């Protein structure tokens, strides 16, 4: 059945002797293969060897602490409402007296979860955050997960560790 009038019928003529022997074509292919033995490979051996990700790469999420070590996130929910993949959820809690060194604002996130299967690493949460709390690290990628319960990242994985702080170029 003809769907359109655009089809063209190719007429192939009789093959020449060289073409019928196939040998010149095989030798030409071998030469191409041989050439690649001596050129620089375009791939890298990924898990052992890593590429430079660039200063604006959007990798693993981190919930920053401020200079004194208090959590910046105040569970305002703007990251969650900005998230196009609806990957973020949170539960807020009121800060009690005596917890001022732990949480910077009156309210903090008791639970903060990111579903890494849903996340598309667009960085809109980082843009929406009014408290400069959530960032996508430029130097770390989210590791591969093998179990379903590794997929949802809670505060234990997201909050910045004080002995391993995250800094970007341009931050003081």
């Amino acid at each position, binding site marked *: 059945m003809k769907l359109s009038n655009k089809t063209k019928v190719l007429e192939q003529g009789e093959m020449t002797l060289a073409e019928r022997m196939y040998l010149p074509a095989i030798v030409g292919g071998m030469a191409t293969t041989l050439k690649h033995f001596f050129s620089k490979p375009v791939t890298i051996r990924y898990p052992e060897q890593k590429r430079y990700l660039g200063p604006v790469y959007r990798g693993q999420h981190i919930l920053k602490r401020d200079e004194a070590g208090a959590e910046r996130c*105040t*569970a*305002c*929910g*703007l990251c*969650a*409402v900005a998230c196009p993949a*609806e990957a973020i959820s949170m539960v*807020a*809690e*009121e800060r009690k007296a005596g917890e001022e060194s732990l949480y910077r*604002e*009156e*309210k903090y996130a008791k639970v903060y979860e990111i579903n890494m299967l849903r996340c598309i690493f667009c960085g809109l949460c980082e843009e929406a955050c*009014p*408290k400069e709390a959530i960032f996508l690290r430029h130097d770390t990628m989210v590791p591969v997960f093998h179990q379903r319960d590794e997929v949802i990242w809670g505060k234990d994985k997201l909050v910045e560790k004080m002995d391993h702080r995250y800094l970007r170029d341009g931050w003081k």
Partner: protein
Amino acid sequence: MKVTIDNITLEVEPGTTIMQAARMIGPEIAPPAMCYYEPLKGTGGKCRGCLVKVTAGSEKDPRPMPKLVPSCITTVQDGMIVENTINEQVLETRKGIVEFLLLNHPLDCPVCDQAGECHLQDFSFEHGVSSTRTVEERNTFEPVDLGPYIKLNMNRCILCYRCVYAADQLTEGRVHGVMHRGDHAEISTYIEKAIDNDFSGNVIDVCPVGALTDKTYRFKSRVWFSKPEDAHCDCDKCSGNVTLWYRGDEVIRVTGRKNEWGEVKEFICNTCRFERKKTSDWVIEGPTKIARHSVISANKYGANLIKPSFPIKQAALAYKPIDDDRDRSFLPAKKSLPSSEKK
């Protein structure tokens, strides 16, 4: 009486204010209101957010009014011409008004429970500037518990007096009011006396900002994560018509039903507001209609959105059938357009 607002002329009853006339046209024309609250008598004229330009006072005296007038307390006169959104002076003044209202207002919207349904947020988003020029210290107060249900954050108050009028007109004995004068003025109760009255919870609904908030809802959720449903119950104290705010299957907040101006017409009692927080207490009527631009409609995919009526009306008025007299004889008969058949 004939009144023209932003080049749109309409007939209104004598005694109508400019604000009410503008609201008849639609939300695109209506000036913003921070202190004016239609169901409460005597409100308005305090925040100056609704200032408009009157370019012709009336038919008999068509001189313009020398200064901008507050539209919520100025009644219309026959032949009055008002400019709201099309007047440069009005828009410039509103920037100043926002700046004044935000003089002492903290920027704690990420913490505040009102964020998302806050009139001051809307007002400053639409009319304000994005930067601040003040370097002075803001007035700060400690948050106060007014009884077991209401939290007063005086920092956020813009002194609109709505709650004072609400308490005056809804309850028998008002125990809170405005203390001190000028820059020191603050909403307070007599020696922090607890408000215990059946209708005291309505001050939460009338508050345009997050100064008076529901303690039972405090930090439970953000407004845009909860899903509003209209519901009613048999209540011997009030009408029982409320809006339930759901998170999942859980009622996290009960408020009065707000109309498109954010005003509650039927005030509800404290039993309905604070104690009936089970779905079994209520008869659900269906999802609340939410304006399309509201953040509350975010991530809700229902067909319960209010589409903006004014542009739809304008588009219908401006619609002209296409004058298409091209030769269509080569088309099969069944494919001819319905508009050409009418001709």
